[in-house]
């Protein structure tokens, strides 16, 4: 695959890249803490799912808040 062909795949925006890295860091953090805090596999997976759910809820709430503030004060 040539660099020119590879370049055609670069379609994501900077915001998408930043959200991807935010998600990745949260996932890694959740895995680490779930492994430290729990001893059984079931508990670990449950804790991981709970953390990721909180992450997505927080992300959506932050996005809504930012949109609301932007509608009030402009971009």
């Amino acid at each position, binding site marked *: 695959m040539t660099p020119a062909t590879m370049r055609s795949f*670069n379609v994501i925006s900077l915001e998408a890249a930043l959200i991807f890295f935010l998600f990745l860091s949260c996932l890694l953090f959740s895995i*680490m*803490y779930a492994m430290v805090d729990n001893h059984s596999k079931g508990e670990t997976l449950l804790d991981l799912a709970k953390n990721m759910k909180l992450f997505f809820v927080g992300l959506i709430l932050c996005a809504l808040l930012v949109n609301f503030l932007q509608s009030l004060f402009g971009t």
Partner: protein
Amino acid sequence: MKKFTCVLLNLCFPGLGHFSVGQRTKAIVFASCVCLTYLIGLSLDFDHYYWYENIHSQDHLVTLQAKPGDSPDSGAHPLKAYFVNPYHESQIDIANLAPRVSTDHIAYFGHTKPGLTLEIVNENTGDKVQTQSDYRGFFSFEPLELIEGENKLTFRPANEYFTEQAGREIHVANYDLSSRRYQPGTLEKLWHFIYKMVFPVLSTPVLHYGGGVFQGLILSWWETLPLVVDQPTIPAPLRDVGFYFVILACMFNLLVLFDGYDTCYNEEFQRDLP
């Protein structure tokens, strides 16, 4: 004793202590998470192995053996990547440094701290050329004129850098402490300490030294696989993300150290119970 051994092993490589006490799954997960975090950080933050100080000037003696004008002028060297290990190389690495040359114009190229402004001065003629390294740290000078015989060349960061856009020389921060221009404040001294002591210890020696090789291998990855559309270099926010990932890897390893100690302590405590 076991708990201290566990901490020491975890200081050699993340998860090694846990592996030694039989917690293999935990060890593999910890090692994978820390390594992935650290390598993602290094793939975005190319400045990691360059401190904010001690970028000294270098002198080099070059002898021109042919008569001037014998050979055609060489053009500027095309800016191309070559393998460098940012951890081991000198602060300003010139790739085509030779004690004897046969052309009266020579274009030097090499690698240094990303974005650094550089200059070469021929002390014998007073001739000076300047350039700036790109986001990967690679740079290429315009051809420098040499005279027959010995030429004393000085490679150094350019404190007064001429920009075509401004049409004049602008002052650039100098990281050479000996010149007394760069005087770090308390906060920057704290960063120096973190760079010199905290990063190498908490990221473990294997990752710290191995990271240089990894970074040397992927210096040009953005040219092949640019993540963000229409960006010729890694955007500044993503470079910051890389830096945060390196810090995150260090924090993860701190967590691994504490967990290893805690686990072994609990095991010993339970064993000693009557």
